[in-house]
């Protein structure tokens, strides 16, 4: 199957499949367990939920910068990108194979396109188990090759997959992208609107948006919502060496950052940027 993408296109307008194709060197896209294999979730129809033939994840092999790569693209429009048994296994299984290749001296460049609310509630603990396996594979793989994540929007990246984003070697975000553990609506429901007004867009993006995350050092590159720009940022990420210490391993650094927070004082996005900039951290 050929997937072609017009240039000068907004990345967020593309389907997961198109996004994966857009990041791979022209003509190298090859999908594994594609739609016609119909490897869908066995758990949705029994609950009266319409399945997707690919369970909302595309596994695409190909090249990035002439090096072998694999792109795992989550389709955010299907069940909010929630991770179930099959979609989780596609991601974990592909990362495990990339690891096997890396251990044999043939590294494969892994890219995660994170458009996900986290665990798919209809599959609950199966999603939980799959995400743990994704985490395990990322940690093992990233000592061999950078694991690159992209959070472009419109869904953003939440839940157990936000933890996966935190484990990545390199994280590319757009302004529209959001990265957080609990979604704004869930926080408002659980803790009240005074804690977080999920309808206050400026507040939400100031807290967990791409610009804020990059400015505070929790993501690496802020890129335009544009196919060429994101493809370029992903290529650059692979040309940068694996970090000596991954973000999620910088315990002393982050403990110092948290120690410098006065939890009795209000704190917002702009104030945090100033604080951490003054402390010589972030951008």
């Amino acid at each position: 199957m050929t997937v072609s993408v017009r240039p000068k296109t907004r990345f967020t307008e593309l389907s997961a499949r198109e996004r994966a194709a857009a990041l791979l060197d022209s003509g190298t896209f090859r999908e594994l367990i594609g739609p016609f294999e119909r490897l869908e979730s066995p758990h949705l129809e029994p609950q009266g939920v319409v399945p997707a033939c690919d369970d909302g994840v595309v596994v695409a092999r190909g090249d990035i910068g002439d090096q072998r790569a694999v792109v795992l693209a989550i389709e955010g429009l299907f069940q909010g990108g929630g991770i179930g048994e099959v979609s989780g296994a596609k991601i974990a299984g592909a990362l495990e194979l990339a690891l096997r290749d890396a251990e044999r001296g043939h590294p494969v460049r892994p890219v995660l396109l994170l458009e996900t609310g986290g665990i798919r509630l209809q599959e609950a603990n199966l999603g939980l188990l799959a995400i743990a396996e994704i985490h395990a594979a990322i940690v093992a793989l990233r000592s061999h090759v950078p694991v690159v994540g992209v959070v472009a929007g419109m869904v953003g990246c939440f839940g157990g997959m936000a933890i996966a984003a935190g484990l990545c070697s390199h994280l590319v975000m757009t302004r529209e992208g959001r990265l957080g553990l609990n979604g704004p609506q869930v926080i408002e429901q659980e803790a009240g609107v005074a804690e977080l007004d999920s309808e206050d867009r400026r507040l939400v993006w100031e807290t967990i948006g791409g610009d804020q995350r990059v400015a505070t050092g929790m993501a690496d590159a802020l890129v335009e919502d544009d196919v060429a720009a994101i493809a370029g940022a992903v290529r650059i990420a692979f040309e940068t060496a694996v970090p000596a210490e991954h973000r999620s391993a910088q315990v002393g650094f982050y403990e110092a950052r948290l120690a410098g927070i006065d939890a009795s004082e209000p704190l917002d996005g702009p104030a945090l940027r100033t604080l951490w900039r003054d402390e010589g951290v972030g951008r």
Partner: protein
Amino acid sequence: MSRGRTWFEALAGATLDGEPASVLCADGTVGDERTRFLTVVPNAEAKFTRARGGELGLEEGWTLARHVREAVAVDDDGDRRALVAVVDVPGQPYGHREELLGLHLALAAAVDAYATARLAGHPVVALAVGQAISGAFLAHGMQANRILALEDPGVTVQVMSKRSTARVTRRSVDELDKIAEEVPATAYDVASFARLGALHRLIEGVDAAEPDAEHVETVRDALAEAITSARHDDSTDLSGRLASPEARRHRSASLRVRERLAEEWTG
């Protein structure tokens, strides 16, 4: 008293008064095995107010990471001690400040540390004695070589409260309960979780809330067996979870996907 604290004190034989007070860490033994015990407990004085009920929040994530990494660093040139995560966590805190300050990264730090320890050869064992919920369980327990759980109504594995799940999926709690009968992955009780094949041992006959000396010995023996078997694994990865008979039955799609990926990997 929290079950996490109860079991930590019973197994580790100590309580370490550290900072922050919500994370307990002590070095003890399980049989002949040097073992570092870790748990998260409620702390009414916690700096971040939304994490005072035993939730795994900002401080807890980074602190767990610190304690685990310290064990890895110290044991670098010798025997790799066992790590036992005593799990009793009601979830992660819901807060604006938490998200602002990178709660997802704090949990990633704990995941990273436990996974790193496992890959370095430390036997990591999770012991679920209470709630094991969502991101908190991913961060503290789910990277273990072996997961053990007490068979007790208070031991639950779940990704979201029933009330919240009902709201998000637009179903009634009754409907969810019916679905849980058909789809064990959505049930919360530990026996349903065991059916998914990732649980090494479901320990019966133990009072999870108020164990006596015999109950503690039973659990200690189970931990010893888990540590020993983990040391004898062929690999330090999580592949064992998919090798169990239960996994072959109830996670067959997970196996099928991996088979197909391997077959199609090289075009």
